[in-house]
């Protein structure tokens, strides 16, 4: 039982269930659930927290009154988009680019499987229907700003054609005549010179005021001032379509929490792995928050365990998501794909493949075995409610999943149905024995997972030895054995593997990222004077960005004394089109020496990833974007530490069960994960059961629980 001091409340509102996680200052966790109330999520919020409080014998008011933070994440933004319930949008774009909302960049294949992509007939643009936008609500505005070009013919951001204000005014009237509720503005190169966008936004507000209309104006240079207009447009559309709706929704949750005694502001989760006040002015940055919790959790656990380089793998029912933490920072991508759209958005760099424990298994007419991308989700497989045979059926056939004790006994699996499905739909078409076939399916799955893990590591210029593997997610412990022969520095999983993402949300730091597109060209033959001039220019840009960052954090209740800033830049060799994000070890660029060091750090990282031969300093360098990450104060739960003991508790061993491994049936000892103590070791063959997951330990391996009860996977001597 907890005293509920400094409790952190984390809520994940899914389409079906709302999960509430309470973590007290000692790291004790309680999990509650409620059916999501789609009409009013504040009701399911209350019910889920109530449910979690019951396990601590506390009432919701006690928990709320003493709570340090309350973080709410859900699918409101996604649902608003998918259900076509967002604002009616109008757009102002640079004249001559009006169809960008439809044509995107030709990305009509995003989100399709590789087979579908190869089959061109399946390609289709989705944005016009998702944003309910058509050409009649897109107005082209005469204006042009230049890049300056790689050949440095003029200053970046030079105005080539002035903003036609009369035309802008007329365009806004046209949009308002069509009853738009929000206006997005996206002009070419506005990240280098935002004057035109700013003025257009002023005009939009002026016209709306004159008419007495209420319109929400979003400009891309304020929202995501980075290169590539189509991605900027998509981010602008999401913000314009949904953010005021989502903010109202989050403030409603905050009001509910406050009625229950909560005394602080409500938080929500960003796509880049932090929590922010729900008053955050760029709420589109929270559009993809679901998968970030795991990586945040991995970073926090890494900090406790003193591990800086982590490859974090989440095995769920549908997919296998892999991300990395390098030097204690979560790796990000800046052009993620979301619901078949490509955005300008820093997001945790999760590389996913559509193979998980619930993946359907299909043997095609060519005897090729396909896994996924369709999945049973919560229906598990033929052994429960799903009409198609899945990987889970194979796990059941092999004895890894306990038919009578699945999800702590809440669900009974039908082993006969699983066996029949594996035999008839997999084994017989391949001419294999049923158990061979089931084990073979796992072999294929594990091969894919391993390739995915090694690709992720190698594509970043590392070897597995540079990383510790964290495996979590509901099916993580179940499939850990299948990837354990990769030579990672260490392999770990956790008793709370199934709730790892929620733990991450609760443990997350309060931080924000600020990115600003630039166009600083550093020629190969630059001299001292040129270096000084470039450094001065970049330094000014950093100062402006840092000032913006501090102001914003302070406006949300953070004290500037408690803030820490991390600086970096997206750099390229001049001419290369892909940037490399470099987080500087020395702070920000203020003078020529800093510039030199920044170039050095960029080159080292570049050569690490692409090889020494890929270096090309003779072409010069290009700073495309600078960024600042500002980290504020937020309490995080302590992870409890215990006195290690090798002695097993009386209830640790539940018995024995036969399971099939490497071509034969063997006796596996069944352990109760909740009864394992810090310092305990588990010898193989063993299956460690938890109400929410199952950890399989085949012959040749052993487990060891450290003082935090983190589980280390070792080869037996």
């Amino acid at each position, binding site marked *: 039982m907890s005293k509920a001091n400094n409790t952190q409340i984390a809520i994940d509102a899914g389409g079906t269930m709302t999960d509430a996680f309470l973590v007290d200052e000692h790291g004790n966790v309680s999990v509650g659930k409620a059916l999501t109330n789609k009409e009013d999520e504040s009701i399911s919020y209350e019910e889920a927290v109530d449910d979690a409080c019951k396990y601590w014998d506390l009432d919701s008011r006690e928990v709320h009154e003493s709570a340090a933070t309350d973080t709410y994440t859900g699918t409101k933004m996604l649902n608003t988009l998918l259900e076509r319930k967002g604002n009616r949008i109008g757009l102002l774009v640079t004249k001559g680019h009006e169809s960008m909302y439809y044509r995107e960049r030709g990305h009509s294949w995003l989100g399709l499987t590789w087979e579908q992509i190869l089959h061109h007939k399946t390609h289709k*643009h989705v944005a016009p229907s998702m944003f309910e936008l058509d050409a009649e609500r897109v107005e082209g505005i005469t204006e042009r700003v230049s890049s300056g070009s790689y050949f440095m013919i003029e200053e970046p951001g030079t105005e080539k054609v002035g903003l036609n204000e009369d035309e802008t005014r007329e365009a806004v009237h046209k949009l308002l005549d069509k009853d738009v509720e929000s206006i997005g503005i996206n002009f070419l190169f506005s990240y280098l010179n935002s004057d035109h966008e700013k003025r257009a936004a002023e005009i939009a507000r002026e016209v709306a005021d004159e008419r007495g209309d209420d319109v929400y104006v979003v400009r891309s240079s304020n929202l995501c001032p980075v290169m590539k207009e189509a991605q900027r447009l998509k981010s602008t559309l999401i913000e314009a379509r949904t953010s005021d709706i989502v903010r109202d929704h989050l403030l409603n949750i905050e009001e509910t929490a406050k009625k229950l005694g909560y005394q602080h502001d409500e938080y929500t989760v960003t796509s880049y792995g932090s929590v922010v006040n729900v008053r955050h002015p760029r709420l589109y940055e929270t559009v993809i928050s679901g998968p970030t919790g795991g990586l945040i959790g991995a970073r926090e656990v890494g900090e406790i365990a003193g591990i800086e380089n982590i490859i974090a793998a989440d095995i769920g029912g549908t997919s296998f998501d892999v991300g990395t933490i390098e030097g204690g920072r979560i790796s990000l991508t800046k052009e993620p794909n979301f619901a078949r759209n490509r955005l300008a958005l820093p997001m945790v760099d999760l590389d996913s493949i559509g193979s998980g424990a619930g993946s359907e298994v299909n043997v095609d007419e060519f005897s090729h075995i396909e896994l996924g991308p369709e999945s049973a989700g919560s229906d598990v497989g033929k052994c429960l409610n799903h009409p198609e045979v899945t990987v889970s059926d194979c796990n059941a056939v092999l004895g890894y999943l306990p038919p009578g004790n699945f999800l702590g006994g809440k669900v009974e699996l039908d082993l006969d149905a699983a066996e029949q499905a594996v035999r008839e739909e997999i084994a017989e078409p391949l001419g294999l024995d049923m158990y061979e076939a089931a084990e073979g399916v796992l072999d294929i799955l594990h091969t894919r997972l391993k*390739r995915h893990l090694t690709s992720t590591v190698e594509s970043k210029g590392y070897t597995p030895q540079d990383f510790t593997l964290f495996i979590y997610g509901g099916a993580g412990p179940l499939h850990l054995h299948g990837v354990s022969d990769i030579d990672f520095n260490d392999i770990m999983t956790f008793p709370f593997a199934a709730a790892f993402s929620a733990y991450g949300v609760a443990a997350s730091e309060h931080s924000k990222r600020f990115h600003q597109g630039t166009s600083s060209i550093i020629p190969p033959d630059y001299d001292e004077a040129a270096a000084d001039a470039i450094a001065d220019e970049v330094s000014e840009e950093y100062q402006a960005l840092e000032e913006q960052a501090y102001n914003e954090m302070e406006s949300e209740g953070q004290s500037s004394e408690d803030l820490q800033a991390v600086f970096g830049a997206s750099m390229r060799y001049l001419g290369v089109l892909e940037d490399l994000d470099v987080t500087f070890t020395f702070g920000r660029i203020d003078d020529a020496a800093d510039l030199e060091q920044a170039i050095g750090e960029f080159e080292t990282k570049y050569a690490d990833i692409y090889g020494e031969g890929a270096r090309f300093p003779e072409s010069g360098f290009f700073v495309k974007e600078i960024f600042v990450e500002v980290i504020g104060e937020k309490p995080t739960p302590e992870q409890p530490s215990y006195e290690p003991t090798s002695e097993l508790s009386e209830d640790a061993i539940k018995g024995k069960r036969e399971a099939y491994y490497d071509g034969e049936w063997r006796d596996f000892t069944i352990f109760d994960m909740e009864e394992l103590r810090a310092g305990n070791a588990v010898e193989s063959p063993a299956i460690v059961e938890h109400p929410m997951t199952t950890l399989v330990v085949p012959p040749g391996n052993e487990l060891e629980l450290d003082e935090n009860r983190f589980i280390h996977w070792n080869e037996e001597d």
Partner: protein
Amino acid sequence: MSKPTEEAQEPTQVKASTGTLGWGDQTLQDMLQRRDKLTEDHEHYYGLEELQLANEDPIQYDRAYTAIHDAARSARQTARNVAASPGARELGELLFGVLTPEGDTVAVSRGLIGHQGAFPISIQHMIENGYEDNPGFEEGDIFTAFDPPTTGTPHAGDTYTFCPIIYEGELVGWAAACNHIMETGPAVAAAWPPWSPNTYTDGFLLPPTQVGEDWEDWEWFYEAYRRRTRAPVFNILDQKMRVSGNKMINDRIIDIIEEFGLEYYKRVIREIIDDSARAMKRNIQDYTFPGKSNYVAFQSLYQEGLAPLFEYADRDWIFHLAPEDHIDTVEGEIHIDFKELSPADWHASGGYEGHVECNLWLNVMDTVGMGLRPNRGFNMQIDYDLPKGSMYNPKNDEYSAGNPWAAGVPLFNAFGAGVEHSKFARGYLEEAWNEDVGWTGFQGEIVRKDGSREGFSEMDLLGASSTPASNHRDGEPVSTAWWNPESDTGSAEEWEYVLPGLYYFSRTVMPNYFGPGKHHGGNGIQIGYFITDDIKEAVLGKVGGQSSEFTTMASLPGGGYPAPTATLFVFRDTNILELLDDEQMPGGLDELKEWIDDEKLTFESEEIYKEQVAAVTLKPGDLYFWTGNCSGGWGDPLEREWEDIEHDLRHEFVTPEAVQRLHGVVVEREDGEWQMDEEATEEKRTEMLEQRSEDAIEFKDWWQDSREDLDDLPPLVEQTYDDLREFSEDFDERFSAYWALNTETGGDGDE
């Protein structure tokens, strides 16, 4: 476990004792001959009548394929980040592959997948010419190749790099990379030079050549790029990208061999290829209807007056792009007869075998390759006769291959149209589409004020074309690239970085610009630049598959109208810079026309080019405006449904005037919504149908009139037929028979 046929068993001597790079005691030359013999004798790749590994342990086999495929896939994902040219990075115009020792592709990454069809040509050339001994093949050696006759690269812009994968003294395969580079150094700045009378004006060409060792390029090669091309920085960085990816493949394949064992690897790579060939056979049997089909495409090329020093090349052409598809659903094979293809001549639109292999593979993938693992096995069920002396099989290797994709894409559209037609006939109604895919390229060089020059290829309209219509839906604008399934036009903000002095004033969907039908093809795109006084001048050209005087596809399987042509408009010495100073900018062609009609936009001269253009020199104040990439329609435009028309109006894909003209639908606007005037529409459609009846003539009357016209054909058309009849007996016979040229009266056309 069943035994392989005796012939297919592999010699397994201990490597160290032989001193050859081939397997066992074989040389690579031996392996090449052995592959050909076994494949021919047994009608299976390397004589593999049984897929022993796949049958014996399908799980292990699948794991092996996954691992090999992943080697190519992940190399591309990582290495493309090194690329410089927008084509590689922005558009993903690159490919990595894992090849057998003989050069056959086992697995490929995403990207420019057609090139896997051409990879074997370079490898074969090296083996047949003794490269095994001199310079030899060692781990870390880098061979780059971009000379079409010897390397398979369709043109010099498609550059290949190969690295041998050596394991315990044996060459177990190749890592292969391809990407389309920025500029290749021909007589006029380009990556697809449309003007090049012979191979000597094609630019920097390189037969398969060792350009580095120990995974590092030699400096001379970079120096050659600097000296012989106009975009050396981009080209050098692209080379680094190819090497970087090949190194990743090499390392990964070595790991795979250590995991699965050398003998397993040697066998499985061959089984994977034959497995795909078998699957292709099944697809042909299951999806197509047997028989013969003839579709034809045409393309014009104007060169007269552009090559006075090359008297033999100083003329114009119309290319007759006519494959004949023979589909055999019993054997699961397709045979293509190119006997009526235009003869080779002294222009840039021809090519060599690699271009055919590459293009064929692309079409096969989408038409009958559904669900298959892409590799060399695809092409094994499809063969072709390509007469010596035809435009893709010239009599010698002095012919240019500067720009083969321009006529090649229409040629293979015609091939694909036959296959799509057969799928439709088989009952796969939703699977068949019109196969009228286009591309347009824009290239040239910018001359800065100091006189220095920089070449470029701009691939906006190469990155994504529209999709053709099918019987149940319209084509989509900017939605496919035949040569790169992950279509991507790139970003205007990236392109302008490499086009100094040129500024987009338009880059958008063009209304009414498609082949009409009940379902229309995807709209094309309009792109316009104004040229500023930031530079001295720009030398710009336009190429592409739809750049012609007339629609390239003569007819379509779905019966709608083919795609209109890609067109270039040049307005010289305009007042655009003054208009821009006054904050006025045209947004597209319709507005340009209005401004011209109103004399708001003034100019000294205008030029309109439907054909490909080698170069026009533009000065500050000029406008360069091009359109392209629309697709053909399906069915009768008068049967178009209102909901489709309403969709078009909302997205401004069509104007109200065109709706009436094309579809006979009268529209009006009420409360901001488009409405159909049903009564006026019925009247209009009735009137149009009646007009059709009035305009229609009996076939025999048309035939007789046309036969008379044969005596008075435009000179270029006459020359085209003369060329063809001289080159192709088959064409001559068919032409003469069709027009009854050997009878005095010619009959009455009833036959």
